[in-house]
């Protein structure tokens, strides 16, 4: 809150021109306000009742002065009008080679469809250094598509297409707002514009709306397994410190209290988060609890890894999944677009218009990301 700025980020080709006009107008405003206020205060002090200032030959009409005071502001105004009109016409005339993206506004989300069919909600990925034209329509009431960093805005009207275009000049995450009151959750109808380099953007498009090719859960689990150091103790074979986890899933485990435990998902989860609850026969309380360090998502991926019969034997699961992955990639190029669209819709937490209170933390995270991006 305290690191406040007075300017929005400048991230499109037309933004500097906008800011130049804005600054000239600000200079003129300050100049005229200062002239008027200083003159008024000076006169009030000099000519307040009782002062000995000269009041002879007062002036009541001065058509010449009035003409000057009429003509000068008119000329200044016309100059400003000219530059404003020039910028406006540039803003409303998309270049012919612009990349086309389609936007649908509805209460209360933005739905974006890229030319190859990739879809996203409440985010807009665009390439840097390449004109992008948005063709927009609303499904219900009037909205306004507003990107402050690009200094561009247009109403999104039901029943007719409107267009805006821009050419982003800086990578990063920028605010996207609905800027025309559209009902109860109007404030929620925003998101992020993600400006990527041309290559990043192409990759993103080709990956069906993901920055990297999708990773299977088991792969992610393996990565995590090694990253947080599970593999230091849980090796390919049982060690004095810890049992091997190879083939552990659904096996019968003998506990130190004599009971037999079926190693199902619930058991595996508990053993990761609170290992001392159930100790395997022959082992001590060596393992730390991961209760406060792992997210549920991470635990799920660890379990997915442990389900793999060859898990933790040293042989990577990736060889096992690479075939599926290749398949997925193939589908992607053919008809996986729709699949990916569903995925984009379901995996992006900001995508579904949830109730605000619920999505608050997500939004806060996004905001944090966004401010980081802007730095």
């Amino acid at each position: 809150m305290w690191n406040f700025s007075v300017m929005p980020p400048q991230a499109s080709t037309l933004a500097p021109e906008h800011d130049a006009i804005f600054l000239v107008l600000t200079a003129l405003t300050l100049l005229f306000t200062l002239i008027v206020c200083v003159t008024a205060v000076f006169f009030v002090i000099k000519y307040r009742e009782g002062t000995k200032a000269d009041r002879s030959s007062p002036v009541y009409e001065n058509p010449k002065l009035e003409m000057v005071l009429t003509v000068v502001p008119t000329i200044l105004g016309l100059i400003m009008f000219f530059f404003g009109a020039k910028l406006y016409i540039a803003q409303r005339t998309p270049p012919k080679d612009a990349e086309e993206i389609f936007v649908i506004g509805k209460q209360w989300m933005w739905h974006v469809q890229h030319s190859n069919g990739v879809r996203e909600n409440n985010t807009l990925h665009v390439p840097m250094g390449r004109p992008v034209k948005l063709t927009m329509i609303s499904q219900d009431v009037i909205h306004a598509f507003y990107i402050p960093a690009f200094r561009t805005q247009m109403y999104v009207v039901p029943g007719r297409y409107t267009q805006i275009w821009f050419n982003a000049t800086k990578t990063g995450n920028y605010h996207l707002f609905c800027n025309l009151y559209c009902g109860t959750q109007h404030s929620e109808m925003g998101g992020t514009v993600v400006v990527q380099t041309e290559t990043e953007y192409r990759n993103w498009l080709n990956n069906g709306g993901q920055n990297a090719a999708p990773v299977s859960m088991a792969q992610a689990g393996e990565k995590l397994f090694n990253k947080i150091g599970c593999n230091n103790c849980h090796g390919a074979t049982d060690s004095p410190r810890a049992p091997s986890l190879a083939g552990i899933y659904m096996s019968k485990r003998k506990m130190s209290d004599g009971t037999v435990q079926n190693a199902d998902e619930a058991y595996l989860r508990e053993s990761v988060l609170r290992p001392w609850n159930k100790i395997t026969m022959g082992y001590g309380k060596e393992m730390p609890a991961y209760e406060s360090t792992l997210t549920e998502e991470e635990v799920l991926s660890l379990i997915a890894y442990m389900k793999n019969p060859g898990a933790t034997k040293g042989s990577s699961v990736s060889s096992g999944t690479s075939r599926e992955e290749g398949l997925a990639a193939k589908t992607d190029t053919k008809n996986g677009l729709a699949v990916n669209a569903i995925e984009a819709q379901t995996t992006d937490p900001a995508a579904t218009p949830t109730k605000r209170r619920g999505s608050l933390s997500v939004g806060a995270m996004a905001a944090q990301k966004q401010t980081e991006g802007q730095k």
Partner: protein
Amino acid sequence: MSATSTPAHDQPVAEKNYLNAQHTVRSWLLTGDHKRIAVLYLVSVTIFFIVGSFLAGLIRLELMSPSGTMLESETYNKVFTAHGVVMIFFFLIPAIPAVFGNFFIPIVIGARDLAFPRLNLASWYLYVFSGILAVIALCSGGIDTAWTFYPPYSSMYSNSQVTLVIVAAFINGFSSIFTAINIIATIHKMRAPGMTWFRLPLMAWSSYATSVVVILGTPVVAITLLLVLMERAFKLPIFSPELGGDPVLFQHLFWFYSHPAVYIMILPAFGIQSELIANFARKRIFGYHFVAFSSLAIAGLGFVVWGHHMFVSSQSMYESTVFSLLTYLVAVPSAIKIFNWTATLYKGNIRLHAPMYYALSFIGLFTIGGLTGLYLANMGTDIHLTNTYFIVAHFHYVMVGGALTGFLGGLHYWWPKMFGRLYSDTAAKITAIIVFCGFNLTFFPQFIMGYMGMPRRYHYYYFAPEYQIYHILSSLGASLLGVGLILPAIYLTHSLIKGEKASANPWGAHGLEWTIPSPPPTENFTEIPIVTDEVYDFDPVAEHEANLAGKEIELPSESEQPTKVDEPTEAGKE
């Protein structure tokens, strides 16, 4: 600013005036006296102003937190809609014309009443009726369309009291039309002998211009809102594309009225401003003709600039260009007024009483309000700034910094005349300074916030915490402004009970209203005056010489007759 309708009967009152002529409630509610109707209006617009301010306070309180912790989104939307509807339809539009216009237009032109007293009373009843409807609507669920009622949201999607509020606005429109008809007819037909058009005080000119705008514009918005109602109730296809209508058509019709409506709100304040500047600088206004005609120019040009609200609405590029150009032209007459008020101070004999404080702060605030309008008239910058807090700041500088400051200035100026009591000048001056500071602190940060892209009508902004500092500053300012607006209620009420009796002309001002007793008798003038002197006929040179010679000219509280004002009237003879 409070229960002002009670005549101060505990004080010894020497003569009959409009306040103590009759005492019954009936005599108030069925009065044809323009002054009593003005007082009724003063009480009612004050009540609505308090409601609107309270709602504004809620908004500012809520926005201090980025995550919207106090109100539900639906409630917040209803609160800002109610703030807009109440302040615009029930305070800003009627405030100056219906209170000061009603009270003083007949007096400053030397008439005994408005042309149509019963129409005048009917106007107040319509106002009250529409106000009650609006309050019922707000209490029975409220309305969440924003005061602009944009369809198809208002006609097809909103589940709130749209119908009732539109009916209220429709009826309220007739109330302002009635007042406008009265003012036009009165100025045309009832001027006293010798009161030529160019002897009219500028307040009369601006009220006249306002009334023309009201009569030409209000029917358009009334019909437009009725069409929204038709679509809402009977699915008549007009604005909603689902039914085959055009939503942008509504914006054209709505702004055709609502842009001139801005001038309905600000022009009367210009009039008061001219009165204050001339009478406290004790000098004929500089460029009287330019100021008078600039009001008419604003009224005329105001009708051809509505498209500047729609630069990003999907109207054609060429349409926008024409509207932008015309908007730059309408800025010129406003600039002329500012220059002329400032130039009037030159070689004046300036008395710094409380009303003059308001007049000076009006010059500063309206200059900023007007000039920031140029950012929005500029098509290039408007694309970015429209619908952000920049707009909010801009129109509050015009509406609060201009219209409300003008209203307060007028209230302080004419209070002794209206109620025959003096208030504490010092308290009023301090209040004027508090209002000025509080106002600037409230709305200046909103310019920056708007430039940074903070959208208006947002209930929360947790995703953009960089705006919070400005919201907090703004809310701080609003608290200060709130204090500044409560204070007049206290000292003005106090003046009604304990205030020193006002003389006929406590300010030493010039004008027919200052030649009759305070408060004025029911018939205003026992004999219709014959006007022979020019408007604002001060003689700063003579006053100055008297001043140098060490003579006291007149003390504000003592003067029974202004030194330099010698209207050949029989006023004050009673």
